């Protein structure tokens, strides 16, 4: 079958882009797969994409981009105008315009595909409104329902029933969307993100290093992690914490580590292209997020043989980590409990090695071939007659 993914910005680095590329590449082994990016701001995507997957864009933002006659004037006129179709509460509302409305609308009315997968709220809404009935339309929600403004949730209630299916990353999110949508709405499927095929380096559990990785922002809870690590160091002064990433709170965290006397134990590392390589040089992953929609980092760390200590926060970690088996979960935002869990794993090498082995096995559940099979099963079922009356024309 022909499967088309619609992304807002396929040319930039972003978790959604990365996961969509991974899934598209795997599906392209057996299907004709295309990615359509609403926006394009550079010649090549920043993330690698297989030649088997075609990539095109609807609106070219490159400075030298030429818009063919007769659209040039229209584009110039509509580009600065705000979008009339995307709700202003959409988190990327500012990236849309009257011109993206025009181009997305035109694309959605005649998408030459069997299956269309849209990857964020604004695009899901437009696909539900405009895509023809003959195309199977799947809306993907990467975010929790609860972080949305009430106005956009009303839009979900109105339009999402017209999708052929909605997918969420966690079962908890699936239940929320199911509860929010009216009776007779589209089915909600939970399919997590997949781990791409590659040769993952494996930790030998030999370095006294705890690792954390992600954008340095409040939601990731690195402030809590550093507080917890101060307690770890009292007991195990030889252990180091390495936090990889960039973001607005990096300086603040470095100062916090200094204030707590952790300058010999905590390093705020630069982001790296080879995070798996760095995972493999550590012995434990710390997942200190206050909330985590999924937790791709946990799965990547599993694949490198790291047990994970995490806050039992909403939503992803508790559905990925099996507490006591491949990691430890502690009450959210409780640095003392986090420190105790780290101390337990650091102090008990046998436990750590056992959990590291389990982590490798857990990673296999998220292998992209397993995830792609679930997509194919869902798509095959949805395409089989009789189709549910979605309300689309």
């Amino acid at each position, binding site marked *: 079958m022909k499967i088309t993914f619609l992304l807002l910005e396929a040319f930039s680095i972003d978790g959604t882009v990365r996961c969509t590329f991974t899934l598209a590449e795997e599906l392209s082994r057996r299907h004709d797969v295309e990615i359509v990016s609403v926006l394009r701001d550079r010649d090549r995507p920043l993330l690698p994409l297989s030649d088997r997957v075609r990539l095109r864009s609807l609106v070219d933002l490159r400075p030298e981009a030429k818009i063919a006659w007769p659209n040039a004037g229209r584009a110039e006129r509509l580009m600065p105008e705000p979008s009339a179709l995307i709700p202003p509460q959409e988190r990327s509302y500012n990236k849309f315009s009257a011109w993206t409305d025009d181009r997305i609308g035109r694309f959605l009315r005649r998408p030459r595909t069997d299956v269309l997968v849209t990857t964020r709220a604004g695009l899901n809404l437009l696909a539900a409104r405009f895509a023809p009935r003959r195309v199977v339309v799947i809306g993907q929600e990467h975010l929790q329902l609860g972080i949305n403004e009430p106005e956009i949730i009303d839009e979900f209630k109105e339009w999402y029933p017209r999708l052929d299916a909605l997918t969420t990353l966690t079962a908890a999110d699936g239940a929320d969307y199911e509860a929010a949508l009216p009776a007779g709405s589209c089915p909600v499927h939970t399919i997590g993100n997949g781990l791409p095929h590659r040769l993952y380096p494996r930790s030998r559990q030999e370095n006294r290093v705890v690792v954390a990785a992600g954008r340095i922002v409040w939601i990731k809870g690195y402030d809590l992690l550093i507080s917890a690590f101060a307690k770890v160091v009292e007991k195990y002064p030889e252990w180091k914490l390495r936090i990889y990433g960039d973001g607005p709170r990096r300086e603040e965290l470095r100062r916090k580590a200094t204030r707590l006397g952790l300058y010999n134990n905590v390093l705020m590392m*630069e982001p790296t292209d080879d995070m798996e390589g760095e995972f493999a*040089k550590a012995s434990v992953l710390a997942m200190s997020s206050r909330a985590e929609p999924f937790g791709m980092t946990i799965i990547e760390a599993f694949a490198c043989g790291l047990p994970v200590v995490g806050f039992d926060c909403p939503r992803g970690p508790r559905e990925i980590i099996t507490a006591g088996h491949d990691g430890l979960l502690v009450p959210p935002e409780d640095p003392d409990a986090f420190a105790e869990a780290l101390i337990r794993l650091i102090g008990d090498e046998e436990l750590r090695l056992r959990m590291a082995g389990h982590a490798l096995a857990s990673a296999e559940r998220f292998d992209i071939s397993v995830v792609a099979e679930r997509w194919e099963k869902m798509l095959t079922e949805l395409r089989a007659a009789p189709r549910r009356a979605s309300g689309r024309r």
Partner: protein
Amino acid sequence: MDAVANHCRVGADDRLLVRWPAPVPDGHRLVLRHRASGETRTEPITGGRHSVELDVGDLASGTWTLVIEAGGLDRPLLTDDPGFSLDGLRAYADRPRERAVGVVRTPEGRVKLRVRKVTPHAEVEAVHPRDGEIRIIGRLAYTGPRPGESARLVAAARESEARLVRDVRLGGTAFQASLAVRDLAAAEPALWDLWLDVGDVHARLVTRLDDAPGKRGMLSYPRQVAESGGREMAVRPYYTDRDQLAISCRLVGAEAP
């Protein structure tokens, strides 16, 4: 998929050991190829076709790529081994040597050997700026133990002739040195570079064996304030952009951001 080596490391004895979890097919050989000159070194896979071990201490400087050759075809050597441990890097630097050989694993799992000339340095492992002193703990790298030789920490002001010299405790390769904040504060404001002098070895204080280059942006040390001659000086250790440990002494209010 090609066989993936589960061990690929250079030991402190400069022996490269590559090991596979299952025997590799007969006739496979490990080839090291020098990127700059094209020179190669070939070694049959032995140990019941499970492993190969060879001396790499005399390889020419630069990068060597490792491939598996069979029937005239080369395939990259693949491994899931990170290639070294932090303790291993320290043990390697504990021996006297002029050349260091290390495994570099690429993100794709390929293997390179990096061979480079080294000179002795004083590896800083911990710095404790508190209680009116700056205590520095570390070990001499690439010289081996220096029994019977006296050791001194030398702080040299970057833009003057000022020097501070302190005796250092040396045990094996491990050293502990300390500088009093008030002694630094008594001199003119300056940036102080640090050296460990042991016999004829003049070793810069630097942190290189922790696999985390660029420490300047990764950590910061607290300042200590001392009064001297009616003025207040802020004294703070820091890393230069080449990971050398230095100490900044500035009048309070005139410190670098």
